[in-house]
């Protein structure tokens, strides 16, 4: 609706539209822009530096930079904003001008002032910098901010953003994905009314807590773009599992739970002792209330390109040994092999568990294993391997609710 109403005003030169998108993955916003054919400048605020707590949020700003409508309907733009004459507000030329951050000055200020906001500012600047290990440095700066102010919700949220970015980069460190979820949960604990923070957790969380399928539009977008004869923007990180899952209500049991059986109950399949495949499990939320659901994401990556997936065999398979206090409400259990004989992609399998309301505060492990076919690059040896793991589940009646 916005686009239809503002485009004629933009084309006439009466109005300038600027978008600021709240998105962890800018490429997804690029695909959205291409699909919707938005030709306005769009800026990316993954860290929520603008402290936006609700979207969409249209603000009308006059020629001097003064807010004239904090939230305006597109239908009223012409009469209530464009047809109005506003007095020119004169301020010094250097007032309210955002500077390119000077990292060395920000570092010095952080050490000298030793307050949370100085360290958080440094973390923000690092995240936006070109430094090779910017996420690692930013995470450290945010950690110092949190040490000085354990109620700094913005520092928690931005730590989560930086951790998630590092998790999806070659610089990833073990546990980054789970730590991101943990930090977002802490941010929400500080301010449960911050909608953007809540959405970031819900993006990866269980369907029970989902308002809608977050990326339902992507398939349609690609189809429409291809039909226009264009090439859709490539997504380096495809939405998967919970990001594409639709919502459900309490008591719902998904119809698409794949039949499963414990194919290796005696553990006879050879273990992946060479660590050809790396596995990271991410639980969202990091702490789960009794009676709630938790999304478990298994992310499989080929370690250091030592091997490739062998797709001329069975699909990757996951098994979990559950106690009676949990039930599966959705599961993929397998990752379907792509049609090529070999591949090297990241493989994601999602499982959703509902916890009994009777469960007490506890941390316990859920044992499981994965089976996969890989071929080593050196020597071309192909193997069928088993990877044992334990999912660490934390049950906490005081955990923040995602709903």
């Amino acid at each position, binding site marked *: 609706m916005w686009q239809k109403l503002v485009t004629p005003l933009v084309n006439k030169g009466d109005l300038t539209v600027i978008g600021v998108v709240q998105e962890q993955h800018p490429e997804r916003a690029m695909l959205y822009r291409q699909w919707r054919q938005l030709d306005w400048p769009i800026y990316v605020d993954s860290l929520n530096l603008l402290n936006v707590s609700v979207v969409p949020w249209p603000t009308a700003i*006059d020629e001097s930079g003064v807010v004239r409508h904090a939230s305006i309907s597109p239908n009223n733009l012409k009469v209530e904003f464009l047809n109005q004459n506003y007095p020119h507000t004169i301020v*010094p030329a250097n007032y309210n001008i955002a*500077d390119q951050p000077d990292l060395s000055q920000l570092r010095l200020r952080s050490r000298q002032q030793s307050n949370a906001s100085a360290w958080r500012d440094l973390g923000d600047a690092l995240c936006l910098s070109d430094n090779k290990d910017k996420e690692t440095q930013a995470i450290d700066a945010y950690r110092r901010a949190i040490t000085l102010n354990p109620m700094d919700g913005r520092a928690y949220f931005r730590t989560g953003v930086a951790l998630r970015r590092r998790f999806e980069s070659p610089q990833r460190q073990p546990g980054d994905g789970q730590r991101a979820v943990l930090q977002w949960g802490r941010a929400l604990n500080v301010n449960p009314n911050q909608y953007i923070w809540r959405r970031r957790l819900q993006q990866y969380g269980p369907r029970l807590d989902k308002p809608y399928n977050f990326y339902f539009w992507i398939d349609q977008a690609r189809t429409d773009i291809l039909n226009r004869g264009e090439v859709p923007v490539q997504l380096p990180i495809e939405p998967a599992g919970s990001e594409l899952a639709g919502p459900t209500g309490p008591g719902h049991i998904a119809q698409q739970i794949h039949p499963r059986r414990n194919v290796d109950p005696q553990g006879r399949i050879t273990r992946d002792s060479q660590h050809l495949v790396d596995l990271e499990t991410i639980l969202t939320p990091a702490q789960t209330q009794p009676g709630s659901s938790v999304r478990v994401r298994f992310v499989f990556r080929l370690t250091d390109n030592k091997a490739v997936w062998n797709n001329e065999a069975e699909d990757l398979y996951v098994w979990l040994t559950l106690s009676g206090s949990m039930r599966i409400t959705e599961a993929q259990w397998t990752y379907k092999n792509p049609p090529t004989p070999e591949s090297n992609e990241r493989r994601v399998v999602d499982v959703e568990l509902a916890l009994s309301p009777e469960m007490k505060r506890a941390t316990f492990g859920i044992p499981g294993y994965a089976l996969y076919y890989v071929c080593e690059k050196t020597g071309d040896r192909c193997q069928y391997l088993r990877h044992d793991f334990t999912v660490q589940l934390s049950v906490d009646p005081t955990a923040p609710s995602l709903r």
Partner: protein
Amino acid sequence: MHLPFLGSIAIFVSTFAMGPTSVAEDVLPTIGTGVGDLYPDFLLPSLDGKMGRLSDYRGKKVLLINFASW
């Protein structure tokens, strides 16, 4: 006053209300997101990879839309 790269609303709460057409340096308008405030300038990367400021658009009537692609 220059800001590191983002107008910090919390820092720049002024005792001044709103409405002047011209102000002295010691009585500057509030930086904030309420009606009558100067919207905090920001420096953010665009989808095309270039850094841009809100203040680049001074002199124009701007509709700033904060939105999400999810």
